[in-house]
């Protein structure tokens, strides 16, 4: 071996050691950052579990709220109320959101398509309390009462941009040749969009809807001005209705120790329900994927 090649060899070894060192440092940094990013989630979950888990019982799911100082009781009306409010929001938001997303995807550079994209961006930045005031003005004031309908509408407005954005992004991922394949069979554009494009993007669309649901299921601010809350059992959508996040708000700001405990427990119920819904949707998607063999 010549002197030069020995020298080169030694330098390469040195460089290799240095690169290994840099690699270890970067790996360490990214690992720490990952832990930092997950930490708040674990912290919140742990804290809520610790504070709220103590008072969790079957009664909490089946009983109505009790007044201050009366032990027991639950948030059954708020669970059902939240389900109804979110259901109404889905009913109001999903159909127009899907159609709007289809339009924005199929005609991206038309004035209407651009306006829609700009509009959804702005809408997703509007504070939820402002949406609440909006629903208060257009529904609560004319009807002269707080109602679940108004709450559903407020939540729907918050959901709209989330679903539109997610659906549009998912439609973009559908191969173009599927659309051509359908059109080449003589299918009109609208049937192509509804029967081929939307089903092909369904997994992502469902995920988008779940994101929207998860977001609005935890909204309290717009409900203060719309569905208002209700300590009693009510499934009448034209009347004030209880909801879990609003219940947490009411319990938490009250000056009573037992209500604070209930706020934590309600928070736990809300988190578990939203998480459960998400897991269910994911299972459904993976089951459907297996069915399609893809």
């Amino acid at each position: 071996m010549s002197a030069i090649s020995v020298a080169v060899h030694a330098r390469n070894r040195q460089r290799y050691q240095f690169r290994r060192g840099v690699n270890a440092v970067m790996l360490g940094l990214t690992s720490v950052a990952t832990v930092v990013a997950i930490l708040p989630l674990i912290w919140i979950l742990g804290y809520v579990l610790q504070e709220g888990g103590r008072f969790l019982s079957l009664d909490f799911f089946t009983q109505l709220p009790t007044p201050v100082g009366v032990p027991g009781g639950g948030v059954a009306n708020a669970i059902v109320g939240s389900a109804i409010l979110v259901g109404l929001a889905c009913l109001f938001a999903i159909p127009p959101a899907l159609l709007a997303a289809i339009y924005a995807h199929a005609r991206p550079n038309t004035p209407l398509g651009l306006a829609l994209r700009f509009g959804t961006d702005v809408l997703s930045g509007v504070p939820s309390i402002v949406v609440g005031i909006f629903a208060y003005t257009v529904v609560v004031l004319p009807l002269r009462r707080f109602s679940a309908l108004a709450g559903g509408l407020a939540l729907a407005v918050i959901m709209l941009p989330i679903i539109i954005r997610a659906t549009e992004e998912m439609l973009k991922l559908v191969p173009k040749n599927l659309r051509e394949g359908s059109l080449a069979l003589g299918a009109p554009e609208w049937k192509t969009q509804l029967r081929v494009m939307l089903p092909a993007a369904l997994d992502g669309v469902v995920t988008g809807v779940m994101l929207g649901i998860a977001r609005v299921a935890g909204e309290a601010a717009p409900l203060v001005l719309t569905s208002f809350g209700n300590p009693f059992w009510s499934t009448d959508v034209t009347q004030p209705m209880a909801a879990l996040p609003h219940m947490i708000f009411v319990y938490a700001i009250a000056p009573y120790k037992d209500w604070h405990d209930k706020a934590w427990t309600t928070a736990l119920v809300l988190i578990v329900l939203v998480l459960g819904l998400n897991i269910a949707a994911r299972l459904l998607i993976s089951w459907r994927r297996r069915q399609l063999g893809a």
Partner: protein
Amino acid sequence: MTIDQTAWLNILTSTPAQVHEQAQKHAIAGIKMQVQNMAVYYGNFCAVRDVNLKINEHHITAIIGPSGCGKSTVLRSLNRMNDLVPKSRIEGQVMLDGENLYAPGVDVVDGRRRVGMVFQRPNPFPKSIYDNVAYGPRLYGIGNKRELDEIVEHSLHQAALWDEVKDKLNQSGLALSGGQQQRLCIARAIAVEPEVILMDEPASSLDPIATLKIEDLMQELKRDYTIVIVTHNMQQAARVSDYTAMMMMNEDRSGTIIEVDETRNLFTRPKDRRTEDYITGRFG
């Protein structure tokens, strides 16, 4: 009244059905489609121009030529798929049975039903095999289960796929192999009973065995249908087609058909020097 005037009066007073019948009668026997002085523009760019092509019924016409010379553009103009390209524009005529597909008032959807298409990459819908084939017939309002079953079986038979999939019609079309997917797409195109089938490099993403199957299939299909195929594979054009159209790029980057002939003649006695250079591999 001169003869000309009578003819005009006839046209003016006939119902669309009668006009159609007339057109049918006048269609030159044996010529299924005819492209006349066609030019296609994408924005300001002229993709093809001066295209003239006759497509004979129950024969396979191949369009060959170097990449980018506009083969696909010509093919896609035959069922108005170019309409989907933003800012595209077409001049000239594309006649199907003597009727201009681009005439005002002609139904694009009906044209696409009569002129089906198979694409370069197999593109089955993310649905079951059955639903893939039944998609077209359902579009046209066939909802009867027994009728659909029949169409699906017949189409899959014609696409030489039935024996391979008859026990798994409910499985996803995406679970099939590439060659099977392409035959599924052919079955899907056949299911709406087209008159012409356009194939845009249908075997270019397939292995040699699957390619052979598709080529054999084309020979079967030409008894019932008229086939136009775009291919960059000259051997394939020589093997499968009855007529071949040679395309070449002009100096302004627009494409033109420079020679059309029976495949045998075009490959053995090309008239145009550029064709000869291309098929003998001397083309730069």
